C-alpha cells in the first residue's frame, strides 16, 4: 500500500512541477504548485514525519501560495502573458536555450549520480516515538534555540521590508 502511494504521490509532484513551468497562465501555475505541495505533504507522511507534513500544508500551501495568488490577482497579468507569448518565450534566444540544456544536464547528472548508490532500504516506520511532535519541539527549543530566535527576527525584518517595498510612493 505504501509503495502504491509513493508512486502515485511522486507522479503528482513531478507532474505538478512540470505543469508549473509549462503553463502560460500564472494562475494555473500557482494552482498546480499547490497540488504539488499537497503531494509532497503526502510523501512526508509516508516518510513518517506527520508534523512536517502538517506544517507544509499550513505554511506553504496555506500561506505562501495565498500570497502568490493575491499578487497574481492584483497584478492581473494573466491576460497579458498570453499576449506576450509565454510559450514562445520558452526555448527562445541563445542564453535561454543554453539554460535549458544546462537544466537537462543537471537532471541527467543527478539521476546518474544518485542511482549509483546502493539501493538503501528505509527502516520501517515503527520509530514513531522518534519523530513525534514532542521530540521535535524539545530539540528545537534546546539545541536549536538560537536559530529559532534568529528566524523570528528574520521574519520581522522580512515583514517590515515587504511593507516598505510595496508601498506606494508619496506624491
Amino acid at each position, binding site marked *: 500500500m505504501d*509503495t502504491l502511494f509513493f508512486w502515485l504521490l511522486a507522479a503528482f*509532484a513531478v507532474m505538478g512541477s512540470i505543469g508549473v*513551468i509549462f503553463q502560460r497562465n500564472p494562475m494555473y*501555475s500557482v494552482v498546480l504548485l499547490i497540488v504539488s505541495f499537497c503531494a509532497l505533504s503526502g510523501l512526508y507522511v509516508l516518510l*513518517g514525519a506527520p508534523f512536517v507534513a502538517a506544517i507544509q500544508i499550513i*505554511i506553504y500551501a496555506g500561506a505562501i501560495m495565498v500570497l502568490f495568488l493575491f499578487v497574481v490577482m*492584483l497584478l492581473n497579468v494573466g491576460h497579458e502573458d498570453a499576449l506576450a507569448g509565454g510559450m514562445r518565450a520558452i526555448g527562445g534566444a541563445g542564453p535561454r536555450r543554453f539554460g535549458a540544456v544546462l537544466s537537462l544536464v*543537471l537532471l541527467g547528472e543527478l539521476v546518474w549520480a544518485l542511482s549509483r548508490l546502493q539501493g538503501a532500504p528505509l527502516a520501517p516506520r515503527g520509530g514513531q516515538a522518534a519523530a513525534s511532535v514532542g521530540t521535535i519541539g524539545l530539540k528545537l527549543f534546546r539545541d536549536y534555540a538560537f536559530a529559532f530566535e534568529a528566524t523570528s527576527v528574520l521574519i520581522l525584518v522580512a515583514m517590515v521590508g515587504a511593507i516598505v517595498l510595496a508601498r506606494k510612493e508619496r506624491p
Partner: protein
Amino acid sequence: MSLPEPTFNSYLILSGILFAIGTAGVFLRRNLITILLSVEVMLNAVNLTFVAADRYYQTVDGQIIVFFVMTVAAAEAAVGLAIIIALFRHRESLNPDSFTSLKW
C-alpha cells in the same frame, strides 16, 4: 502488478528530478512570478531530501532544518513578491527582459 518498493534512493532521485525541473523553470520562464515559483519548487525538493535523510538516519534534525527552510522561504517569498510589485509599478511588465537597463 508489482511496483518496486521505494528505497532511500528513490526519494533522492525524486528530489533531484524536482530540483532540475525548478532550475529549468528559472532559466526558461519569462515571467517574474513563475521564476519565483520555480525557486519554491527547488526549495521543496531540498526539503524532501532532508526529510528522506531523516528517515534513513533515524533522527529528527532534518525535520527541524526543514522547519527553518520553510520559514526562510516564506520570508523570501514575501520580500520577493514585494519587489515584484514595486518593479511592476515602474514598468507595467513582468518580463525580466524589460529590466535590462540600469536606469529607471
